[in-house]
């Protein structure tokens, strides 16, 4: 570190969602939809002085074999509505929502994020995600889907249009001056015109400029295009590379892309998703982690995972038995729908898994536990605090978006035991210094529109 300021660990919490990482079978597992669960998690995060609260989104219930997938948590609230409500029970915590740029329109989304930023006094963030699948499209007017190669084009233009809308009001446009009788300072407040391949819109935006100007922009895609999009447009990346080596490689890669867009490394934060299991000792934590993995991967879940790679009905196989001897079906339509992750090379994966199962003597369930249930931080509070600090110090990340495996109490122990250690080490705030999410993240204010022009 040699004289440089100690790098701060940014921390956020992801409300546990519809993946098998969320353990619903545990007796401590509470409601996934009652507002009390959201209040609990958000307040614990705010008391621990986290940067923000994060919500993912999926706009169609997942299916496997053409039927709704039953084994994981199903169901979630509307992102904008629940974040607006969480704004009422928190004071400083950032509020980050995942909103799709394919099945929405810029005018509506821009006003919703501007509203969230007003209602939270400057705490809104947008995780811009793209979809292209006709499966999700069946729930929307748009109906026919977007060709995959156009999804980032649409996302980029969607975000550009939203920014034009946010910039259509200046900081000083609302005068509300009772004496002069001027409510707004100019006749053309909110004027915008956008004519592009994806959107041809114009008129007047109807939400005055919000406290942050623009919400903080997140990007979560991992492809080359996704990384370029982040380098060009985003304030933060929600990445999946939470381990030391992969984290450092990813970090160097995306930070290295910034200069081409005239941006400095600190203008884009790299925040991997991370899970954690704590224990009194490292050994204790390892034991608990193994239990959690078994809760996350039931026999039925293991078969379902295997089916997504094999693309076949494997319901006849015993999860406690060996891997199937048949090969993945690469020709059939995908049997799993509504998931962002796709198995890109099933034959290779099957070969690798067979080798792994053979060398370690694993049955199906054990194998799936081995290959899927990633746990980023496992150890005593002291070990986890040290790991977090080291990964940030060594530029594998700027911080982490923690994904607890229990609702609503999954962050309690971390907040009670790890956060004070990070605070003692001087790498995590004890009090919020700022009021807006941009301030928490150390991002410069959005330049007023006049300067942009």
């Amino acid at each position, binding site marked *: 570190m040699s004289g440089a300021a100690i790098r701060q660990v940014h921390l956020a919490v992801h409300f546990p969602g519809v993946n098998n990482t969320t353990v*619903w*079978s545990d007796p401590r597992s509470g409601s996934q*939809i009652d*507002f009390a669960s*959201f209040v609990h998690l958000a307040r614990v995060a705010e008391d621990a002085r986290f940067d923000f609260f994060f919500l993912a989104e*999926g*706009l*169609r219930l997942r299916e496997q074999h053409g039927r*709704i997938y*039953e*084994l*994981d*948590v*199903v*169901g*979630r*609230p*509307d992102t*904008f*509505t*629940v974040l*607006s*409500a969480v*704004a*009422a029970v928190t004071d400083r915590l950032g509020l980050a929502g995942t909103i799709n740029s394919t*099945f*929405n*329109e810029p*005018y*509506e989304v821009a*006003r*919703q994020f501007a*509203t*969230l930023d*007003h*209602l939270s*006094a400057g705490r809104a963030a947008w995780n811009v995600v793209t979809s292209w699948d006709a499966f999700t499209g*069946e*729930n*929307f*007017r748009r109906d026919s889907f977007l060709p995959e190669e156009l999804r980032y084009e649409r996302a980029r233009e969607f975000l550009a249009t939203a920014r034009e809308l946010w910039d259509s009001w200046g900081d000083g446009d*609302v005068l*509300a001056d*009772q004496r002069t009788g001027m*409510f*707004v*300072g100019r*006749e*053309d*407040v*909110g004027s915008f015109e956008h004519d592009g391949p994806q*959107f041809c*819109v*114009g*008129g*007047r935006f*109807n*939400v*005055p400029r919000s406290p942050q100007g623009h919400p903080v922009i997140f990007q979560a895609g991992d492809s080359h295009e996704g990384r370029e999009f982040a380098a060009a447009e985003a304030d933060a990346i929600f990445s999946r590379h939470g381990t030391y080596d992969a984290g450092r490689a990813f970090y160097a890669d995306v930070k290295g892309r910034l200069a081409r867009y005239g941006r400095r490394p600190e203008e884009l934060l790299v925040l991997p998703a991370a899970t954690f299991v704590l224990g009194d000792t490292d050994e204790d934590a390892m034991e608990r982690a193994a239990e959690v993995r078994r809760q996350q991967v039931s026999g*039925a879940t293991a078969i379902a995972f295997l089916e997504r790679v094999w693309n076949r009905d494997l319901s006849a196989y015993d999860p406690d038995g060996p891997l199937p001897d048949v090969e993945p079906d690469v020709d059939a339509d995908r049997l799993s729908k509504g998931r962002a992750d796709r198995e890109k090379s099933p034959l290779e994966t099957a070969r690798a898994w067979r080798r792994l199962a053979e060398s370690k003597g694993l049955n199906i369930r054990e194998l799936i536990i081995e290959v899927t249930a990633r746990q980023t931080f496992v150890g005593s509070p002291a070990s986890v605090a040290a790991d977090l600090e080291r990964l940030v110090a060594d530029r594998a990340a700027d911080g982490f978006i923690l994904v607890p495996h229990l609702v609503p109490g999954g962050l309690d122990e971390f907040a009670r035991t790890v956060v004070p250690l990070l605070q003692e080490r001087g790498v995590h705030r004890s009090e919020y210094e700022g009021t807006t999410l941009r301030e928490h993240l150390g991002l410069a204010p959005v330049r007023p529109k006049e300067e942009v022009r």
Partner: protein
Amino acid sequence: MHLAVALEGAGWHPAAWRAEGARPEELFRARYWSDLVLEAEAGQLDFVTFEDALGLQSLRREGPDGRVNRVRGRLDAVMTAARVAPVTTAIGLVPTAVTTHTEPFHLSKALATLDHVSGGRAGTRVQVSGRADHAAHFGRRVPEQTAGDGELPTFDADDLFEEAADYVEVVRRLWDSWEDDAEIRDAATGRFVDRERLHYVDFEGRFFRVRGPSITPRPPQGQPVVAALAHVDLAYRLAASSTDVVFVTPQDTEDAARIVDAVRAYELGHERGAPLVVVADLLVTLGPSRQAADARWDRLDELDGQEHRSDAQRFTGRAEDLADLLVAWHDAGVQGFRLRPAVLPTDLVAVTRELVPTLRRMGQFRVTYEGCTLRERLGLVRPANRYRAARVGALR
């Protein structure tokens, strides 16, 4: 008698923001809205409504008016209601939602979520948008009909209302797409939900197709309350076919009785769970005397530089006289009132602290809240789930 207040900007008079007691610099802050709704809740009102639109306020039908001396800009109504929900406990929250240009799938889950975060206090007032300038904000559709020489094209009104009826149908189907007990958490089979209790809604209409199910579990009320404001035949028909509550604008007691009869006639031929709850809108300016209230109103007109006209009948005077008027209209068959305060918070406070006590003394208004949900308060039963009925019927 049901009593509601309609929240809109600084109040319903265009110069409200300039009145004494107004808080015009706070219109875009959460605190302003939660203060207003807490005041309404302190008066045990049934619900508040929140206005909304997909464009900037304008006096001109054809587009922006360039006025700088009136309130311009607003926050999303559903989100404002959600922001207020956790700080209130009993009052109904009824944001406006536009059914033109927007997605029924999104609105359905937003209102279901509002119902979850408020513990069953959500409703919505659906509204169509026929304005060409608002359509241009979406760039998706072009208006199909020219209204007349020199006027910009607008949407065909029949289409807008037909779409709104389809929209409400889809939104309700999506609320029902989860049976109440769809979440089973069955450790033995490893299943979180029972997919037999989740349903595709498979709506196909002229304007959209929606497959379903919703991503949000069925809300506490089963179906949040749906309302519409009706002045014209098409809107009455929409209310009769699709909504639970209708806001109407009678001009006097006889007109109120006539409108109630008309609503009942519109209902014939529709399979309804319950009759429409008929709620009359009134624009209210209150004062210690008729003269004082008139002076307040005249001052507002003077500030705005023109006489303000409203679709709703205007009451300007003492709370006691307003109480008499409400009782007379109530006797004529109107079940409740949605009062539009000329100035916020002034006329809202007059409603909760003068009108409500007066009505109570007359034995015409509740002393404490009864029932937890907005439906219960309005005397509307929790709707049975259409898909469960069909599924259980099929099993028998």
